[in-house]
């Protein structure tokens, strides 16, 4: 019996997820031993037509990282969906939209204008813009179209499982691969990570106050962070209470507050709204003005609470009229 065939693909993402695969180190040899990597553009020279030639569902499993932002990405994941038995959203970007998803606070026009015209570092006196198709002597040349908004993977195709994290922790990847190979997968649509919040496993949980009251919010560079004490209790906006565990507490161990890359637990629809609710509820004041003053220290609530999940949020994107909303 031949080995199951596996594909990896990279959409709107930073490349960190590909690194995560490499982070398997020698384990990757076990992976290679167990499966045939058929398609992995970042490492192997495969072309789209190679995928097109595959039979339907010939790939046992495809791992797709990155959010969906362009027509090309959409076409590729649509194609991979057809050719794959299992399709796994790999990492925060494909899971929830990720950091690239913050682009949903703007629209295509303003992003293009910024990148090609307005940004401080741009030198473009003729005002060249990327073109989606152009007539050259040799013929018509086309480029993928940039969409107006960033989408999560499951907003464009059917997704079987999710591997959360920015990037997904090696442990989770190993477990997921193991489960796939063993055919011991949970119900479709599951996130392949523990379903409890990070506080459960936080090394600092002993020091979390039983009745936390937040009187002041601070940013990490503003204070000397105690390496033992609950970060929230120190005034840092640690989102561990709202974030799925399974990351190995990497940030907290690194003396940095959790920023929420693993996304919400299964009972929460909108990560940002829920995290915001938890944090705001703990503000230690009942005075309207004082509440506003305390909360004003949270510099960018949208960017903070939706750092990894804006496209997956209920609102999905900003709707400012000047950005083509409403």
């Amino acid at each position, binding site marked *: 019996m031949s080995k199951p065939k596996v594909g990896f693909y990279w959409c709107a993402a930073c490349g960190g997820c590909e690194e995560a695969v490499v982070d398997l180190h020698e384990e990757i040899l076990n992976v290679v031993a167990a499966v045939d990597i058929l398609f992995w553009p970042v490492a192997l020279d495969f072309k789209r037509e190679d995928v097109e030639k595959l039979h339907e569902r010939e790939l046992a499993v495809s791992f797709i990282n990155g959010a969906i932002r362009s027509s090309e990405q959409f076409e590729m994941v649509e194609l991979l969906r057809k050719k794959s038995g299992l399709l796994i959203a790999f990492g925060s970007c494909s899971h929830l939209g990720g950091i690239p998803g913050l682009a949903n606070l703007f629209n295509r026009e303003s992003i293009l204008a910024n990148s090609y015209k307005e940004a401080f570092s741009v030198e473009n006196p003729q005002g060249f813009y990327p073109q989606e198709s152009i007539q050259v002597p040799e013929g018509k040349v086309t480029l993928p179209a940039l969409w107006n908004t960033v989408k999560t993977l499951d907003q464009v195709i059917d997704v079987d499982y999710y591997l959360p994290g920015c990037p997904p922790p090696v442990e989770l990847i190993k477990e997921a691969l193991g489960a796939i190979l063993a055919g011991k997968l949970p119900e479709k649509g599951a996130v392949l990570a523990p379903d409890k919040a990070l506080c459960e496993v936080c090394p600092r949980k002993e020091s979390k106050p039983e009745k936390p009251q937040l009187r002041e919010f601070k940013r990490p560079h503003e204070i000397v962070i105690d390496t033992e004490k609950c970060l929230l209790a120190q005034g840092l906006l640690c989102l561990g209470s709202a974030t799925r565990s399974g990351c190995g507490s990497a940030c907290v161990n690194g003396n940095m507050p959790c920023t929420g890359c693993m996304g919400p637990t299964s009972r929460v629809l909108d990560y940002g709204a829920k995290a915001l609710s938890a944090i705001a509820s703990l503000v230690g004041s009942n005075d309207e003005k004082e509440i506003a003053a305390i909360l004003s220290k949270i510099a960018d609530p949208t960017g903070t609470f939706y750092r990894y999940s804006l496209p997956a949020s209920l609102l999905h994107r900003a709707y400012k009229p000047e950005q083509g*909303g409403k």
Partner: protein
Amino acid sequence: MSDINKSDNGNFEPRIVAFFCNWCTYTAADLAGTARMTYAPNARVVRVMCSGRLDPQFILMALREGADGVLIGGCHPGDCHYQEGNYKTLRRFTLLKRLLLDMGIEDKRVRMEWIAASEGDRVQRVMNEMTEQLKKLGPLHLEPVSIDTIHKKVEESVAQAEGVKI
């Protein structure tokens, strides 16, 4: 969705989801009824025991499901049936408001009002006022999230992008 509600012409009837606390605002709305105070029929009331139960997700969900506005009604500060629930709502609302503004949801679309059990007239006023304001603002068309329903839109946007040539 009915076209009576969502038409872009002058007859636009905004749809409001109103979350009222059982003890003050819901009772006030009952009182407005008993007193036969007619007001704009645009809000659909969802009763919660305390405004403190309001998860910001509910507000976003209402907008996502097609509401043009969300009204939150709770007891006056200091009058909460559960002592302090309304203060907690206030805390969340203060922060949520900033987030909503970032997301382009206008200030007047999501409104919080303290309405005591005796203030039936205030229910009437707030309902009328908010309906008027939303009529001025127009419908809040949130873009559908899933690709199935937006496939066409994506194509349009591509076509549109092709039109944007410099």
